[in-house]
């Protein structure tokens, strides 16, 4: 069974310090085949190109284990769209948006040039959700309706306070997938039971969380035999479609 961790930040600052060798060891211990790696906070907010290059380099060194994500801050306007296309051309397989860090309300038309730059390519768009004003599940639903061909991954499933909104918002937009990190197994399991296993994606948010601990806890609640898509196949399908 293929296992992929959707949410890893191998950074070198603040609470996301994680060296690549350490990450690979942790993945081995947790029996995780692959990980999508995304830039650290400063690189999500301002130093987009630096962060994207770093992810691409790490993934190139371990192409069988690491899948590079990229991010651009839409406040950079045309330069953001150009950086996104450059990163995609170099191998980035997922776009990461962090409205609270990047400074806009999720769904703001500011995002249009960035998402339009993807053209018809159904690249998965991971959105960090949870911050109250900037990144709520229903804000994501509105955006997802505007771009129905793009798969949107609701990072953290609105944790903590939007647990009531997650399932109805995801039902409103079938191109939304729920990512599990920070949502905690005892809450996330209820989301998937309501929405369907095929709409879930596993993420640990390491190193903010302990990778092995998060996988163990989740496997204890959502049994791998019944949720194989959640643990890897669903995300693999999205990444594959986005790479076309």
């Amino acid at each position, binding site marked *: 069974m293929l296992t992929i961790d959707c949410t890893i930040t191998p950074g070198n600052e603040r609470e996301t310090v994680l060296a690549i060798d350490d990450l690979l060891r942790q993945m081995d211990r947790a029996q995780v085949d692959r990980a999508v790696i995304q830039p650290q906070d400063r690189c999500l907010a301002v130093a987009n190109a630096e962060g994207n290059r770093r992810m691409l380099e790490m993934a190139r060194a371990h192409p069988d284990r690491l899948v590079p994500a990229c991010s651009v801050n839409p406040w950079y306007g045309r330069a953001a769209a150009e950086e996104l296309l450059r990163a995609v051309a170099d191998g980035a397989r997922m776009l990461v948006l962090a409205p609270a860090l990047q400074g806009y309300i999720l769904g703001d038309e500011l995002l249009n040039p960035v998402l339009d730059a993807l053209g018809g390519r159904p690249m998965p768009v991971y959105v960090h959700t949870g911050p*109250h004003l900037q990144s709520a599940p229903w804000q994501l639903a509105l955006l997802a309706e505007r771009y129905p061909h793009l798969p949107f991954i609701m990072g953290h499933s609105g944790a*903590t306070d939007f647990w009531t909104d997650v399932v109805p918002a995801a039902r409103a937009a079938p191109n939304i997938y729920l990512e599990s990190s920070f949502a905690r197994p005892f809450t996330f399991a209820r989301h998937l039971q309501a929405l369907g296993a095929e709409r879930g994606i596993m993420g640990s948010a390491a190193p903010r*969380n302990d990778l092995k601990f998060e996988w163990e806890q989740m496997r204890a609640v959502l049994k791998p035999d019944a949720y194989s898509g959640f643990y890897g196949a669903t995300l693999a399908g999205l990444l594959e479609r986005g790479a076309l």
Partner: protein
Amino acid sequence: MIVDMHTHWGAAWADQDQTDPSQGLKIFDSYDITHAILMASLALSDNAEIARDNDRVAEVCRRSGGRMIPCLTVHPCHGVRAVEEARRCIKTLGARGMKFHPWLQGFSVMDKTMDELAELAAEHNLPVFFHDGTPCYSMPSQIAGLARRHPRTIFVLGHAGLLELWREGIEAVRRHTNLWACMCGPHLAAQKEYFRCCDHQRLVWGSDYGFGFADPISYRLGLLQALKLPDHVMECVLDKNPRRLLRLAGA
């Protein structure tokens, strides 16, 4: 010995077991949790339930043989009636703490009655627990503002700022010696920062168990254990600090 500093008697439990704590205690036993502060649940979302829920929580605690410790709630916007209900809970129900959830209950901690309640808590040595981590009424900095105005009262950030406001929580706890934080909500890295930056004598642990039947204890206790704290710090967080705060035997 473990004292869980954040549990509720939720509607699901009240429907299933009324005021019988035996099923809940079995769960606690499986984690070696000896005691737990028990907070209301229905009363946090329905003002009409406040007195009934305070009675219910007290009865559950009474039947637990002292393992569950009652925590009262009132709605500050009820003014004099709120203070009277708080006095009743302290005097006749044996409440050992106050709990407020400004986000769910819908009030600002700047409410004048909150000042009266904070002073009442100080008078009776009761800690005041808050839901926190949620704008616009439950931010750690707002509760820190209350702690600043009432230095005799001990306040507890019930969620240590959750996932978004934990840095604010750390700053608030460092600034005010009468402000404590409960490790119940922040991720692992944030909890590490709490232990690096704050006085561990004012940190406790909680599970938020009891809103429904889902069991958050395994995850949340596991998260604390994953911090790999020195034994003496772990003992403080899980046992000594809560006993001191609640004035339990062995403190």
